[in-house]
């Protein structure tokens, strides 16, 4: 489904070099590595927010290496949820799709939150709204940039399970980057260590 071939990116030092990733339909992959090793940059390159030095990315057999982010249809969950303060929860969701807000909110366990002001959400709730929004956009791949790391452990555990279940039920492939091995094991089908892949 998603083929990344020989991805390289330098940023003062080499972050990843000739890294190849293959993601099957419905597969959830975790990429681990210590902070600052280039995990986030990798995701940003895959979804198109940053340019690769070299390498190519294929989605369903079509090359998307040079397509702008907004047409790739690859979703991204940021480390801290990015919610637009000028919009309500529902307004934030409508940035992805006009319909099915109730269903999407129920899926993430926040039914009835549509009219809430985003200021009033807790960290976990915020991340769930961001997830609901990302899924509403029907991404062909969802990228997750340590979205659970800012939450306390009970909450993150629950969220990890919920998100995994949701992704599996939709057969949406996903890549999670995290420095937390335990989290990676719980969430994913397969784990790559970024440092291993460099060396």
């Amino acid at each position, binding site marked *: 489904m998603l083929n990344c071939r020989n991805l390289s990116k330098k940023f003062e030092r080499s972050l990843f070099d000739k890294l190849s990733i293959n993601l099957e339909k419905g597969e959830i992959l975790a990429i681990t590595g210590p902070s600052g090793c280039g995990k986030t940059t990798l995701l*940003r390159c895959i*979804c*198109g*927010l940053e340019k690769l030095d070299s390498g190519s990315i294929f989605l369903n057999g079509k090359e998307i290496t040079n397509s*702008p*982010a*907004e*047409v*790739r*249809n*690859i*979703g*991204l969950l*940021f480390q*801290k949820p*990015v919610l*637009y*303060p*000028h*919009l309500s929860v529902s307004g934030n969701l409508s*940035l*992805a799709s006009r319909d099915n807000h109730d269903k999407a909110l129920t899926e993430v366990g926040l039914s009835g939150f549509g009219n809430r002001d985003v200021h009033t959400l807790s960290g976990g709730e915020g991340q769930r709204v961001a997830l609901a*929004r*990302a899924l509403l*956009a029907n*991404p062909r791949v969802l990228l997750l940039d340590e979205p659970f790391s800012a939450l306390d452990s009970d909450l993150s555990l629950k969220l990890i399970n919920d998100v995994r279940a949701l992704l599996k039920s939709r057969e949406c492939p996903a890549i999670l980057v995290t420095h937390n091995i335990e989290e990676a094991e719980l969430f994913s089908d397969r784990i790559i260590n970024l440092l291993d892949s460099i060396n």
Partner: protein
Amino acid sequence: MNSLQKIFGAIAVVLYTIITIAPIVFALDRLILVSGFNPTFWVQSLDKNYVSQGTIGFTFIQSFFSTILTILIGFPIAWVLGRHSWPFKAFLRSILTLPFVIPAIIAAMGVLTITGPYGLDIRTEESTWWWTLILSHAWFNIALIIRFCEPVLSTLNPNLEEQLLLLPNGVTFYSRLKNLWIPVLAPAVAAASCMTFVFSFTSFALVKWITVRDKTLESTMAEVSSSSGIQGYMESSSDIVLGASLIQFLVLLISLWLMSVLQRKRQTKWQQASENLVQNKNTKGWLVLAPAIFFVQLPLLSVILGSLRVRDASADSTSFKWSTAGWSEALQGSYSFPPLSEALFNSMIYSFTTLIIALPLGYALASTIHILEEKNLHLSKILEIYTMLPFALSAAMIGLGVMLGIIKLNPSAAYDFWFLPVLAHVIITVPFVVRIILPALRSLDLNYEENAKVLGMSKLNRFLKIKLPLMKGSILVATVFTLAMSLGEFGASFIVARNSEWTTLPLLIDSLRGKPMKDPLTVPASNAVATVLMIITMILFLVVESFRNQKDRGMF
């Protein structure tokens, strides 16, 4: 930077150059043609001509003392307002910072009414002229001190002070002052002082009306501008305008540079909460706030009262009666003095047209600078300074530029082109729009834009649904600021608006005042016009205040 952005940015820069820089170049070209290129001579001519003798010294000295007095009056207000909780705090702050948007000519009318023979009757004292000018400048600019210092005080993490109280070096008030308050507040105070100095330095309407004998560089320029730029006729006028412009340009450039250094400093250093953390009440603070409110509102009140107080015209008596005759006079108008409604209409159309041009242009420039900051820092710095150039020019110079420029292009436009004053207003307001929009663009969380991209939103959609709404506050501030500045603009309009059909509210106030005051209705009529202008400005200001986001800590 993609090609669309490039084209967009290039159009904005070209348009800005045509509208703003070209007239100034025309003016300089014409003046230098007359005076020759000899900057030392220009500056020396200021002291060689009786008209401008002593203006350099006076301009510097009054700006210096205006700045000091502004801090002395403004700081206690900012402190009390920021360090304690107040009922209707936002409203209090609005009232106290209102003078900043009130046109200078209105303040001048107010001061004259207060100090004049039917007020305190202290204008006969020579010292009055000096300290009323300084005090008027303080009246204007305390808003800057409040705006810059109050948020620092009210959002400073209280732990910082609490921790210090528990440390050996923080037990005394003095030590806390030294170790906390001065380092925290110094950049804000310094930045506000810088701006106060600049505004006092280029003061025109207040100097024209309040000060006697002494003149600032700006008011001197306005006085001789009509005879400048002419070869073989009163050439000293051109020397004076060039000399005064050069000094102003340098002073403003240095101040702007200082400002930007200070602003960077005060943004980064201290831990600030996103909301108001100060909770304690302080009833004694009213001892500062109540007189401050009185001080701020007095000139405005006196303008309103002055519009209703009519001198009894009989013989040499000095009795007064309350009457709306001044208003009728202003509403009626005459050939030389258009009716209030016409001036109001002109002012409205001029300011809205100014807005329609200056806001998109300023936004486009700010956005181009912002985009360039990532791609080409040098170019963005150059462009940023380029957009600030009009700041360093006096209104008189801008007026002169527009005038000479239009004569060169199409002479009949000087009286036929009804929108001519708009050009001057655009030149004056565009830099402000850039200054307001740019920090807001910079403070926009990059994640917002990126997240919208991965959600698949198109460029236009991102602009309309994400950027504009997030920038709402700043755009509104820029809108109101542009409208208010255009409505109250006096210096440049004074030179540009030759056709009496183009009279704006401030020009009408000025020309009504300039009319022989034998007519007892002259003063009430001019105060009536001033009242209208003041009320419009106040409404605009209150609108922007009610929308002002707590987190907005831009320049204004």
